[in-house]
């Protein structure tokens, strides 16, 4: 089930090209057109949506421990507005859950 080296580096190359495309693409298209408010709305809504979709997929594929950990992260983020504290709080919960409840 492990990914062989050739496939891994090919995947990293694909990721690099796609990411570079997103870095250059915005300024490039602005040479010819302006981003309409609709396109901006689409990209903004999609940016948050894709992250949320990855999170719920992760929760469905895993379980209670992971679901509560994500809940902790959301609450800490709402309270502190710091993604770092949210991340640490979720890790601490997940670590505690593993040590004490399983």
């Amino acid at each position, binding site marked *: 089930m492990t990914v062989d080296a050739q496939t891994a580096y090919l995947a990293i190359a694909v990721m690099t090209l796609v990411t570079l495309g997103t870095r250059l693409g915005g300024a490039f298209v602005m040479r010819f057109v302006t981003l309409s408010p609709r396109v901006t709305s689409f990209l903004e809504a999609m940016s948050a949506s894709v992250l949320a979709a990855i999170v719920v997929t992760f929760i469905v594929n895993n379980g209670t421990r992971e679901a509560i950990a994500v809940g902790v992260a959301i609450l800490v983020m709402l309270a502190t507005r710091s993604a770092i504290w949210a991340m640490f709080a979720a890790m601490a919960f997940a670590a505690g859950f*593993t040590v004490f409840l399983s």
Partner: protein
Amino acid sequence: MSDVSPTPGFTPRFTAHGLVRGGQRLLPVSVFVFPFGVAFGAAAIESGLTIDQAMVMSLVVFAGASQFAALDLWQSPLPFLSLALVVLAVNARHFILGAAISPYVNGLPPRHWFGSLMLLSDVNFADSYQAMKEGERDAAHILGGGLVLWCVWAIATAVGVFAGTLLGNLERFGVDVVMAAFFAALAVGMVPNFKAALPVIVACAVAVLALPLLPTGWNIIVAALAGGLVGVVFPSESKATP
């Protein structure tokens, strides 16, 4: 974004001085990137990447959220197309950043234009965009900030990779939930009010419903598109800066 109309006749520069200014301004901020890099390095080892692969990924991709997302799809056989599309969707916000900063880079010769944008990320965008509004005219400012972030990201990944290798099973430290927690926090940060949350809620529902129906990763792509469309139909008030 329409407020970035540079004064007529201004030509962007690209100099070593601008590079240093951008780098200096981001030195203190870059400290906050460190924990994410460590978390990525450890999570990468946990997901089965070798030390070399994790390091190369951080050095050449240099986009934390998409690197975490890739770990989620890191399995054999590797789903290349969904990996590419998920990376595209996660990094799509770069389009907005690039479009916003374009008036300050588009007059440059191709080599400098590429240099200004090749390490564009949320953090150096935010800093350089602010500097440009305050009169900075050197596009190397963006690259300078990017280089500082890039160094910190690489060092932090190395620390995480070695911690992951030495400590073995990282689940007992909660490393396996880092990606989900980080993404949940980022998504919350992107949602200023209920109207902005609507696309996210729809995307979550679509992702769950489509999960058993589609090949690996495709439920995320369909959910991202659905969220984007909801954002077009019910746009929330755009923030002052992207």
